[in-house]
């Protein structure tokens, strides 16, 4: 049985039975990266030495029958927006090209406590701003299913790493769909937990009120296990919710009786690719065959989501990225005429154009005379969007939709038209604005062989229900076992 492509559960039981060591397993993935990543470009840093050391340490403790963590010996790839102590964390930006954090993000501490193997740092859109992983300052990640296409973004490196069998698990972050959309585009599972479920401490901020860290895996069970490891209260994040974390991995295989699956009539809009729409309708049939009830609900403010998001996220980003000024860390220009010029030149050089565009947009939206019309207005419509969801979830358990209206784009397709790219976030953005958990599971392929993801959303803190509903679908379909032929 192959290591590459195996699920996390399979790998764990082989480790536990002693059929495999973590060093063997980690070596297999490192080899896979060495063979394939030239073409996929999922990784920015491969943490070879430390990963093998962690693996050896787990093997030693496992052999000595010492207690080990939930992910003992399993490689996890980390989006390069999460701070890793002593290991370069660049946010795929020239600004942080040489930044070495003196501390671990909370989720990294959780991974270490669970005895996971940190295999490397993955590529992303610069500061998580983008939907294609093309805005990275260092490299463009390719979709393992079609190397001419993007893996989606901003967590494209993590999604591609799992899809290409370079890691069984990965962490991503999701501000407007940055986990669910690339998961759909790469035919892997990706979940964005409820806002506040996972501590953001050590996640380099993009849109602070929207950002959330979540798992990628090649099956729902892997995602459940990784989610269980990273979730939980952290006193270092004021927005972290102090509520017990259910053992998702224990319940994920239990089907939900009387499941009510909702669809929103506002999601069937112009611009929805017919093949994608057909995939969703087929998925609904699957749920029906599993005994679920399909209900139509209304989310009247859906069409405003993108506008609200592209005011709130850039406004917060313009402030969050003010700290990159070439004084305490990060890029400092070589040539400047005075201190103010040093700031502007360092930032002008250190940031790429999409980041600058969003900083400009956010600065404008918060500036004197525009605050009420843009930022404040967006915050009010945000509440109306949340209220739409609250109402919908009184009638349904999960809301089904495509993860994205179209299959993955060709590399370079959106460079001239950022607004067109922004509009592709229509199905994912609502969960971030409302703080809801969402998951994307593989749901098939277009005729051209491009992956399509099914997105499910649930009410706040209903991750358990979400994972179980996703697992029901996964078991009833054949998509989980499919691997990109590289």
């Amino acid at each position, binding site marked *: 049985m192959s290591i590459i492509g195996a699920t996390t559960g399979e790998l764990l039981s082989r480790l536990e039975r002693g059929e495999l060591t973590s060093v063997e397993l980690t070596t297999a993935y490192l080899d896979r990266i060495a063979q394939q990543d030239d073409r996929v470009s999922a990784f920015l840093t491969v943490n070879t030495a430390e990963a093998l050391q962690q693996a050896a340490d787990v093997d030693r403790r496992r052999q000595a029958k010492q207690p080990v963590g939930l992910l003992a010996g399993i490689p996890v790839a980390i989006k390069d927006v999460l*701070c890793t102590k002593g290991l370069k*964390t660049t946010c795929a930006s020239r600004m942080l090209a040489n930044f070495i954090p003196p501390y671990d*993000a909370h989720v990294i501490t959780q991974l270490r406590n669970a005895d996971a193997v940190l295999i490397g740092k993955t590529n992303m859109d610069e500061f998580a701003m983008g939907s294609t992983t093309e805005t990275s300052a260092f490299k463009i990640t390719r979709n393992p299913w079609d190397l001419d296409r993007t893996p989606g973004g901003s967590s494209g490196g993590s999604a591609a790493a799992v899809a290409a069998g370079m890691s069984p698990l990965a962490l991503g972050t999701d501000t407007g769909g940055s986990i669910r959309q690339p998961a759909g585009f790469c035919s892997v599972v990706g979940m964005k937990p409820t806002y506040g479920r996972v501590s953001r401490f050590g996640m380099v901020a993009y849109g602070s009120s929207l950002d959330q860290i979540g798992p990628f895996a090649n099956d729902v069970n892997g995602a459940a296990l990784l989610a269980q490891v990273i979730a939980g209260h952290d006193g*270092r994040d*004021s927005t972290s919710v102090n509520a017990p974390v259910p053992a998702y991995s224990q319940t994920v295989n239990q089907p939900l009786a009387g499941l009510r699956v909702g669809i929103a009539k506002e999601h069937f809009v112009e611009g929805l690719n017919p093949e994608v729409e057909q995939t969703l309708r087929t998925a609904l049939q699957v749920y029906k065959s599993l005994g679920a009830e399909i209900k139509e609900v209304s989310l009247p403010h859906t069409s405003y989501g993108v506008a609200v998001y592209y005011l709130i996220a850039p406004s917060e980003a313009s402030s969050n990225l003010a*700290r990159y*000024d070439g*004084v305490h860390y990060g890029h400092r220009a070589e040539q400047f005429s005075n*201190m103010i010029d040093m700031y502007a030149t360092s930032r002008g050089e250190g940031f790429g154009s999409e980041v600058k565009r969003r900083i400009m947009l956010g600065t404008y939206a918060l500036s004197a005379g525009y605050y009420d019309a843009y930022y404040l207005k967006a915050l009010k419509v945000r509440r109306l969007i949340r209220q739409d969801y609250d109402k919908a979830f009184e009638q349904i358990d999960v809301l089904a939709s495509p993860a994205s209206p179209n299959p993955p784009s060709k590399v370079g397709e959106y460079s001239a038209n950022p607004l067109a790219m922004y509009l592709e976030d229509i199905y994912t953005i609502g969960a971030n604005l409302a703080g809801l958990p969402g998951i994307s599971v593989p749901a098939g392929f277009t005729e051209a062989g491009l992956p399509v993801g099914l997105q499910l959303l649930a009410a706040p803190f209903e991750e358990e229900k979400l994972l179980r509903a996703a697992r029901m679908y996964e078991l009833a379909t054949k998509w989980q076992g499919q691997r990109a032929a590289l």
Partner: protein
Amino acid sequence: MDYTTIIGLEVHVQLQTNTKIFCGCSTKFNPDNPNVQTCPVCLGLPGSLPVMNRHAFDLAVKTATAINCQIARFTKWDRKQYYYPDLPKGYQISQYDLPFSHDGWLEIVINKETGEKKKIGIIRAHLEEDAGKNTHDETGRGHDSQVDLNRAGTPLLEIVSHPDLRSAQEAKEYLEELKLLLTYLEVSDCNMQEGSLRCDANVNVHIHRDGQKIATPLVEIKNLNSFRNVELAIEFEADRQYRQWQQDGMTFGAVLKETRGYDAVRNITVAQRTKENASDYRYFPDPDLVPVTIEEAYLQNVIDSMVEFPAARRTRFIQQYQLSNYDAAVIIDQGVVFANFVEHVAKICGDGKQACNWVTQDVLREMNDRKLTIEGFPIQPPVLGEILKRVNDKKITIKSGREIFLNLLNSEDLSTISVARIDQIIQEQGLSIVADSGQLEAVIVGVLAKNAKAVADFKGGKQSAVGSLIGQAMKEMKGADPATVRELLLKKLAE
């Protein structure tokens, strides 16, 4: 020169917490070891997040309550965005439109003799984080500036007054009263040298001309690092504005508020360069911090646990110890430890007035002469109270009390100072007032017998002759009370 100076003060107070407002780094004043009290949060490192220090919030509410502010039931934190090397995040976490407190007042005494008071309105008090410290190259060679972030993130309470102050003197009184209150409440040490209390003054003048009132443009004076400088800077600035108006006739509103710095060496205010576009702070609610809602029970608890304020204590001292406005002010204005000292002495000796007199005269004089603090004064209330108790109980004379006080102060070994030592000195030096009138009578009879001439002079109408008789009797009876001696002597002479 007929004008009135109009002043509003913005005071920044560092709150006395162990740790910074949003992280666990120490707030210790440590300028000699730069950049050792920092962490990812106060360095503003990517990924770090702030969490509010409960104690900082509690101290802030306590202070705002003490300056009679309304406490908001809902408050939140906002980002104030500007770029400066001592501000690592590119924004300061502060409070903008919903500060936790507003609309209070502080009463100041504007005449110490009469005790005349005036209420100074407080617009708002809000919490924010301090910046780090930049040190500029003063050599003129254009060397780099140095940035130390030890102070970055220290909790600051900003207290903004209404423009109710009408003179530099009043401004100083306001600051002194505020400082006194803050130290009474133990919310800040108010050490200006260490920057725990900083002040900016908004100043303009109203010129009275032909029954009209003409207001000059508003100026904000920054960098006022002592109360004396506040006074001097305002005096200078008011006069400068008057002269400026005579020259250009500019009035309030004609130009934007100007920022000036105070140059203490030359005692002038100097215009500071400011960029017009720098004033767009783009305040917005900090998404990393959650709001605070304040319950009635919390506020009641703050009120219930409040110490007596200086103003209330002054009034009580005046009534309870029959002090003058002036004397009460002298005691209270020395600070809470001093006032507590007085009260402790009063409690032991049973005579408040006596205790006040002694502490404000003898203790204060010796403190000044010997450069001692009240905390470090060798004779603490348990001992001083016992000296005064003996005076009060007519066991020793006031004069003897002072001798004992000085004797103890001059002890070679200060650790020997004790109540037992008082009685030892009384014994050794025979300072006990002789209560046995029989013994005293015998001495007086003897003195009269030996001084026939003086007795004759007195009886002949020379009143002053009695003085030398009392003197001689006292000499023989060391611990005798002069009043008793005089009384008895006159009685004998009258026989």
